[in-house]
């Protein structure tokens, strides 16, 4: 897998570290030349250790030694994303259901997350983030890292590297695999909110395994897999190297931290699930009031904090790009909270706690694809727009769709994800404050305001959104059908009325 070989075939660059440290490409994708010299100095000052991690094929070239700051930041980011899911998402969702179904949500999230992490280690990482072969390579990776084999050498104690967005900068591939495992895990768990309070536990797990394999893996590969900047060793190989990337990456679709891969992907699966599983008994007649908005607020806040790992961590380095993603995740989310509350005040007369928490999540969702791809002003607009749009998503759109998407997975993650993906194409424009990207990863030539076409980029973004909706929709439809025919998607009416805590798990959340 070329991506892991970051820095291995770096001969040209490493021969003159000082020279490439000054190269704008070294700090791609965001122009932040100041961040480049640190890793360069590090790599240059530890030539002896560098040789240790060089595999046979590039034994002559000194390998990159990961910068400890980058590695530490990525380990912390990984932890933050774990915290987003358990407990963050679990509590955010859990507070929104009736008290008799609290544990079922906590269980589905915790066990679903665990299931996907195990599958990720077994085959998910390899199929997502290694280079595929033949006609399927734009859609699916290969088997080089099945069971994470070869990701480190237990005899020599050496660890493979994963590429970042800067030439000559790498992180241990194990860290990258762990970081990406958390993304796969939380994406599956997002879906759970759409069919909360009525799905069979075993059915949820079976669906998640199928959907992860046939929807998450290919879409993540299509959007995120590329050989890494160090693979661009000469002008001659640029085209061939580009061709090794995922389909949507080749199209030029921008998705910094997972607008398509995570949010649209999960939201479509959720919406299809809400239709396939059907409405909850008593929907529209009985009161389905959230049992604890306090826990929902706690969960939303944990999501917000954890999202800094999700978005800023997606820079893969402790760099200026990470800082930009960090500030956008901060400011856009705050703008979305304000927007949702203003919208509610104008329409309903009162701003609500659930509205503020939902606004935060809406802003976080929308800024996800944009985080390191837009300037601060663009980020604020994305956040504001998401607050209003997702408020419509859970009210107007929800009425039109007529599905019982229990916790508004589509209204928030679908609407916010699509909006964020499209606006990324707008505010990525250098003329609107967006960071400039290398258009050629060998020379490091950056996009210019003159060359950037907002219309063309938005079109690419829209195509990526369309592919994700179709792919996830079709896979979900088949997966739900398969599970329905084998396990059955729904609990019995009696079990649903009793509550899933008792009927599915034999426990009660709150003793009175």
């Amino acid at each position, binding site marked *: 897998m070329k991506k892991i070989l970051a820095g291995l075939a770096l001969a040209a660059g490493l021969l003159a570290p000082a020279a490439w440290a000054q190269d704008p490409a070294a700090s791609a994708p965001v122009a932040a030349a100041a961040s480049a010299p640190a890793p360069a100095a590090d790599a240059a000052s530890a030539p002896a250790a560098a040789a240790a991690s060089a595999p046979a094929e590039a034994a002559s070239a000194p390998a990159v030694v990961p910068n400890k700051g980058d590695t530490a930041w990525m380990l912390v980011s990984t932890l933050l994303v774990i915290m987003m899911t358990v407990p963050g998402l679990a509590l955010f969702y859990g507070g929104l259901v009736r008290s008799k179904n609290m544990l079922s949500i906590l269980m589905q999230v915790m066990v679903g997350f665990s299931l996907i992490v195990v599958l990720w280690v077994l085959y998910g990482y390899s199929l997502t983030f290694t280079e595929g072969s033949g006609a399927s390579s734009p859609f699916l990776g290969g088997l080089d890292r099945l069971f994470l084999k070869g990701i480190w050498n237990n005899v020599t104690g050496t660890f493979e590297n994963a590429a970042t967005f800067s030439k000559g900068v790498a992180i241990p591939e194990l860290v990258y695999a762990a970081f990406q495992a958390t993304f796969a895990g939380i994406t599956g768990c997002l879906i759970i909110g759409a069919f909360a309070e009525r799905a069979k536990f075993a059915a949820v797990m079976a669906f998640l395994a199928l959907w992860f394999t046939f929807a998450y893996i290919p879409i993540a590969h299509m959007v995120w897999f590329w050989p890494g900047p160090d693979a661009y060793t000469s002008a001659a190989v640029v085209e061939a190297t580009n061709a090794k990337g995922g389909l949507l990456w080749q199209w030029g679709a921008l998705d910094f931290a997972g607008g398509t891969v995570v949010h649209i992907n999960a939201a479509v699966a959720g919406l299809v699930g809400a239709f396939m599983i059907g409405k909850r008994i008593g929907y529209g007649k009985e*009161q*389905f*009031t*959230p049992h604890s908005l306090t826990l929902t607020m706690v969960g939303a806040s944990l999501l917000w904090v954890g999202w800094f790992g999700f978005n800023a961590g997606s820079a893969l380095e402790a760099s200026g790009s990470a800082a930009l993603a960090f500030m956008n995740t901060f400011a856009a989310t705050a703008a979305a909270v304000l927007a949702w509350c203003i919208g509610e005040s104008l329409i*309903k007369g*009162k701003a*609500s706690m*659930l*509205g503020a928490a*939902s606004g935060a999540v809406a802003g976080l969702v929308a800024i996800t694809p944009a985080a390191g791809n837009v300037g601060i002003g663009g980020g604020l607009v994305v956040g504001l727009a998401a607050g209003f749009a997702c408020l419509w998503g*859970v*009210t*107007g759109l*929800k*009425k039109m769709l007529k599905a019982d998407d229990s916790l*508004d997975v589509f*209204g928030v993650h679908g609407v916010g994800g699509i909006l964020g993906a499209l606006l990324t194409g707008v505010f990525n424009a250098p003329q609107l404050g967006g960071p400039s990207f290398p258009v050629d990863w060998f020379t490091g030539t950056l996009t210019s305001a003159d060359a950037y076409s907002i219309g063309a980029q938005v079109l690419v973004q829209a195509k990526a959104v369309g592919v994700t909706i179709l792919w996830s929709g079709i896979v979900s439809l088949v997966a739900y059908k398969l599970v329905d025919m084998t396990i059955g998607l729904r609990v019995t009416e009696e079990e649903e009325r009793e509550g899933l805590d008792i009927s599915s798990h034999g426990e009660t959340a709150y003793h009175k």
Partner: protein
Amino acid sequence: MKLITAVIKPFKLDEVREALSAIGVQGLTVTEVKGFGRQKGHTELYRGAEYVVDFLPKVKIEAAVNDDVVERVIEAIESSARTGKIGDGKIFVSPLDQVVRIRTGETGNDAL
């Protein structure tokens, strides 16, 4: 002997207890209840879903008292629980056949 049952606004409980203590009522049982009367409920809005909450939280107090203090007890509750706004609650008076103090086995007025 009479059993006085009153349903009052929850925040009036302390005032009612003080008023009853002042006239010598020795004991009181308090239950948190829900119900509806002429006071209308309210609506709650959760994202797109609007729910009408008909049953409002109230406090029910029960006191067993001697016949000769019934009028004073009613008056004490009435004056201490009143806000003048709709939803102040009601007082019910019913005859009480027997009272037994479990510890001593005393019955009737001695057990009050």
